[in-house]
């Protein structure tokens, strides 16, 4: 592939390049584009503006050129206009959701809707709690997400360590087995797993929701790639000091690869929180549902058109937490989810 190797193996170098970019006046906008791209972008813009701005009389930041009278029309027409349209299409539905969740029914069933609620109310959220055991469902979702992610990440770390650093024969065959598992979509296992978990008595239990998803091929694969980039001398030095595998794993490998592990953890948390198909199949009593399944139930019991207020309140509960996490940690999540694209 023409795309060159660039991953979060060198967060220090990347941050350095980013800072150089900011100091050179390139603007934070360019310097913090994200884990998968920022290294290259910040590096390039850093060097160009360093060259151009070596004297104080330089033309200033590179982007300023886009706003000179000669380029302004072009910048607006092919830059901001399409961006604004895209942003409107992306953001409007979400804004509409949040606003509608605070509207009383009368302002939803109307031919002349107003953007802003005339009489904002939190009744919709109370109404959701009336119809489904919301506290329990939220708690279930939090437990499933937290416990599931924790176990998956720990399993991914130990598995990847074993595959990279423990020298035994046949481990490549085991790795191949994990690689093939990566290609099996979870839907394919739906029916047999339903039979297995039902037979074990796991229907409508939290462990029944958790168990089939705990084996992690994705995390193992991703972390294995990361661990392979570690310099082997680092571990050999620790070995001479008498450190065993357990110690080497937690004292050296995990701290050094913390960014990659954070990426795997975040992607896992988001996926677990949104997970729908399996919990839908394995639970049918409201007290044992996770949030997406509870919302599915809410939607199916609320047939009439006036209920959109409650439904939007429900949607806010499942969407907004992820939006907040994403806004705060987007570079890790984006790089984790677009893994493989940039090799």
């Amino acid at each position, binding site marked *: 592939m023409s795309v060159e190797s660039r991953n979060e193996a060198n967060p220090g170098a990347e941050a350095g390049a980013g800072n150089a970019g900011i100091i050179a006046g390139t603007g934070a906008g360019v310097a913090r584009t994200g884990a998968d791209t920022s290294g290259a972008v910040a590096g390039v813009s850093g060097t160009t503006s360093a060259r151009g701005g070596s004297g104080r009389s330089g033309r200033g930041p590179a982007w300023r050129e886009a706003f000179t009278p000669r380029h302004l029309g072009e910048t607006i027409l092919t830059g901001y206009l399409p961006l604004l349209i895209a942003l409107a299409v992306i953001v409007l539905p979400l804004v509409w959701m949040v606003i509608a969740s605070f509207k009383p029914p009368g302002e939803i069933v109307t031919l002349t809707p107003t953007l802003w609620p005339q009489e904002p109310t939190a009744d919709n959220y109370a109404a959701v709690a009336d119809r489904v055991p919301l506290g329990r469902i939220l708690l279930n979702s939090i437990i499933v997400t937290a416990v599931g992610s924790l176990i998956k990440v720990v399993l991914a770390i130990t598995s990847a360590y074993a595959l990279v650093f423990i020298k035994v024969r046949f481990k490549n065959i085991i790795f191949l087995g994990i690689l093939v598992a990566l290609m099996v979509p979870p839907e394919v296992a739906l029916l047999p797993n339903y039979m297995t978990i039902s037979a074990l008595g796991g229907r409508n239990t939290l462990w029944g929701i958790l168990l089939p998803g705990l084996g992690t091929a994705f995390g193992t694969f991703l972390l294995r790639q990361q661990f392979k980039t570690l310099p082997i001398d680092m571990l050999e030095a620790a070995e001479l000091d008498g450190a065993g595998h357990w110690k080497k794993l937690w004292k050296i490998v995990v701290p050094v690869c913390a960014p990659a592990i954070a990426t795997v953890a975040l992607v896992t948390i988001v996926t677990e929180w949104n997970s729908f198909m399996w919990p839908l199949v394995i639970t049918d009593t409201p007290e044992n549902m996770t949030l997406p399944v509870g919302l599915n139930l809410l939607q199916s019991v609320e047939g009439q058109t006036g209920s*959109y207020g409650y439904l939007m309140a429900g949607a806010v509960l499942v969407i907004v937490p992820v939006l907040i996490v994403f806004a705060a940690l987007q570079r890790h999540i984006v790089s984790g989810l677009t893994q493989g694209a940039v090799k």
Partner: protein
Amino acid sequence: MKAALTPSEVQDPPAQKAARHRRGVREWATFLAFLAPNVLLILAFIYYPLASNIYYSMLDWRLGAASADFVGLKNYLTLFTSPTGLDMWRVTLIFTISTVVISMAIGLLLALVLNRNIPGRTFARTAVFSPYVLSGVGVGMVWNFIFDPQIGLLSHVFAFFGANSPDWYLDKNLALVMVIVVYIWKNLGYCAVVYLAGLQSIPKDLLEAAAIDHAGPVRRFFTISFPLLGPTTFFLIITTILSSMQAFDILRIMTPTGHGTNTIVFELFLQGFGVYQRAGYSAAISVVLFLALFIITTVQMRFVERKVHYA
């Protein structure tokens, strides 16, 4: 593995051998302790289902029923020849091709815009990607409200132009268009961001050299950027086909019992766990789905290994 040898070990090969053996056993024990839980889970909940699906797929079996009839390949025959089966393939094809082509086309255009050196693009990039991480259930509920023919946001837009909103939910074709639109909305950002990474890896000197030779932006795109994006395009085609074929959340929330929207995974669910409870048929769909996805992934791996360029 070069621990210092004690003098006695150097002089005494059998003891050395025993020590090495002991260490080998210990390495294996650690290896198993680290890997076994994960491997056992993968075996029990990924590999075992693959095998048992093949058995289930040859049964005429209602989910939950104690007994089932062995029917051989009848379920597969139904899947490839009956009107229900063929309709599923038709819907899956329309859904997959339109979501893949449209998300990639718009994604590339967005990436070109995001690649421009203008302030605010980091925010735009984050915003464009954000629907990709959101719950499909939540997204489906929001769009149900937008598409509602009586009071949805879109119905107000139609009313503004003096038209009536079509009934998206009653007409099978419109229902399919609707879920395609929502699916593209949710997954567009993925294509845009992957294309953006591809664009940023194109050497700047190439584009600058072409600009000096008076190649306009359009010409530069078609003679330099697009050919060099070949591997990215290929990667995106594969990954978006894989995810479109696995679409479920939005379909289930917007058309709960399937109404012209029964793509392969949704049909797998409806047949097994919906009103029909035809578990054997559902298992047959699972087997075919796995084979299809496996072939697509293998093709991808072969091509990536050969490092193809389409320039």
